């Protein structure tokens, strides 16, 4: 069992609580940076996919996990980021760095615009409204054909950064590093937000709007900000996704993607940055695991084993299992193991039992 001796307030504020954890994350980052040297092109593509999902997951996590606003419409914001980036590069001839940043800002502004009417909605009603937005976006993409290429879609323009061509197929290592850099910057920004008044305001409106208001937090503005920041990050993920898919049309950003994003952060662990990464890992690994299992089954039994809908089936089963048995997701489960080991042998069975809250009033929100 270890105890932390704190001698200054800065210790409560800095990024890592102790040296050991800082070292652990440094090793993880070094490993992540070295992946292009260790993996073949196919696996590296999968790793890139996981990173892009993690960025999108962080976007939704901020909104749903920390600010408590459910959204089933984040595929719409992925689409806005993706198309904005491609159109700005193609039509306006902007370099990638500029169009990428602008795509995030545009998506963030769209998010704030959506938030304004959505501010009056709570919980399930907000989810339904954002779901409608997601469905609407698919049609808007088809209708706005002169810009979006309609059902034919667009081809992601080539990226050139400092003279080097960054291409998903031509130079998968560089594209991976680009995604890693974006993921790292978003993670740091996210972590910073959480340790400032802004992040505390997000958590406050999630847990009790009425007392957040009594503390001087402007609930409407904080929600709009949460939407804005969340959509900005999601827009960046969308821009990267466009380059990852190379070609995209209205069928890429469907409602299913929205739902998958939400399921992903629930499985990963709501209310934690790590949860977005764990969820992305699950999203990335499951299809490959199914493929491997299918190949194995085909080799063993002969013929072709094809079960339609198995991927969605497994994913949703996982969601139900997690909601029933581990509502805090993979990250919550790992935290419990960590606390068990750190406190060994003092950990008690009831330490993690969820308590009923006293007299929580739903009357005033």
């Amino acid at each position: 069992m270890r105890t932390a001796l704190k001698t200054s307030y800065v210790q409560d504020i800095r990024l890592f609580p102790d040296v050991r954890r800082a070292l652990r994350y440094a090793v993880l980052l070094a490993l992540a940076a070295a992946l292009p040297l260790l993996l073949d092109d196919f696996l590296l593509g999968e790793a890139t996919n996981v990173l892009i999902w993690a960025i999108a997951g962080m976007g939704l996590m901020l909104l749903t996990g920390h600010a408590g606003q459910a959204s089933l419409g984040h595929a719409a914001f992925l689409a806005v980021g993706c198309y904005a980036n491609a159109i700005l590069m193609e039509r306006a001839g902007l370099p990638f760095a500029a169009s990428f940043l602008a795509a995030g800002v545009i998506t963030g502004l769209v998010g704030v615009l959506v938030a304004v009417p959505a501010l009056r909605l709570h919980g399930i009603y907000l989810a339904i409204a954002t779901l409608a937005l997601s469905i609407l976006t698919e049609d808007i993409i088809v209708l706005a054909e002169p810009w979006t290429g309609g059902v034919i879609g667009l081809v992601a323009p080539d990226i050139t950064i400092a003279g080097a061509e960054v291409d998903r197929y031509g130079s998968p290592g560089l594209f991976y590093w680009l995604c890693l850099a974006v993921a790292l910057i978003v993670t740091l920004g996210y972590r910073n937000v959480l340790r400032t008044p802004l992040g505390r305001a997000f958590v406050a409106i999630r847990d009790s709007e009425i007392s957040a208001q009594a503390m001087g937090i402007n609930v409407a503005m904080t929600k709009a900000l949460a939407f804005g920041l969340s959509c900005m990050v999601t827009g960046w993920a969308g821009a990267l996704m466009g380059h990852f898919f190379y070609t995209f049309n209205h069928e890429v950003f469907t409602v299913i993607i929205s739902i998958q994003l939400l399921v992903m952060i629930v499985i990963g662990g709501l209310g934690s940055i790590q949860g977005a990464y764990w969820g992305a890992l699950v999203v990335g690994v499951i299809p490959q695991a199914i493929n491997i299992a299918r190949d194995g089954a085909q080799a063993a039994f002969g013929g072709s084993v094809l079960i339609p809908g198995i991927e969605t089936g497994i994913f949703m089963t996982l969601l139900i299992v997690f909601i029933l048995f581990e509502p805090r997701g993979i990250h919550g489960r790992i935290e419990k193991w960590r606390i068990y080991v750190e406190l060994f042998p003092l950990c008690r069975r009831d330490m993690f039992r969820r308590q009923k809250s006293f007299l929580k009033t739903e009357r005033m929100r």
Partner: protein
Amino acid sequence: MSLLEVDGVTVRFGGVTALERVSFAVEPGEIFAIVGPNGAGKSTLFNVISRIHEPEEGDLRFAGENLLRLAPSEVAGLGIARTFQNIELFEHSSVLQNLLVGRHRHRRASIPAQVFFAPAVRREEVAHRAAVEQVIDFLDLQPYRDRTIAGLPYGLRKVVEVGRALAIEPRMLLLDEPASGLSAEESGDLQFRIKDIRDRMGATVLMVEHDMRLVSAVSDRVLALADGRVIAIGTPAAVQSHPKVIEAYLGTEAAVP
């Protein structure tokens, strides 16, 4: 000049009149208690002051400023802090995080500065942390800094909620039934703390309370409400022996046939 002036406030919910032309004034440095039977309108009055309910008539001034012109989230900016009857803490955060939310009105940094955690933000956070630590010392919350609210017993939650309100550095503190659900011992602690809040923190205290022992021990003046009307105002002893107050609590003698 009075710190809080309530002038002819009337609140109606549909056909029910919750408050009818309620007027009183709270002087700076006072401990002012509001008593009354259930449904008298005490909590409604608090919710009017924190701008959750809109009064139909009447005026509300704090330090000369018209409260009715403010949005609910701007009330804290004037230095009015409150607790809730049923405890409204941020359940999934630690005690420390809850108290830090109370510092919200003292924040200065812009949003981009916060996202990049600029040096100014770091300095500000250390200052907030130091201010919160004073509240922790004041309320003896040291052992619970990093505990999640969801795992704390009821009595401690009440203390944390008072702490969160104190972190605002209020000029006036509204306590909605601070002693309800507390043990005799906790209620005794509370008695000293309320006096200390006034004497050491310099905050005027306005509280709704049923526990008459606590009310008469700490308050300078008491206001009795019944059915939304003011029936008595004065020292605790005077209000307690006021015939109308006794009537409101115990009822009148039945006419003997």
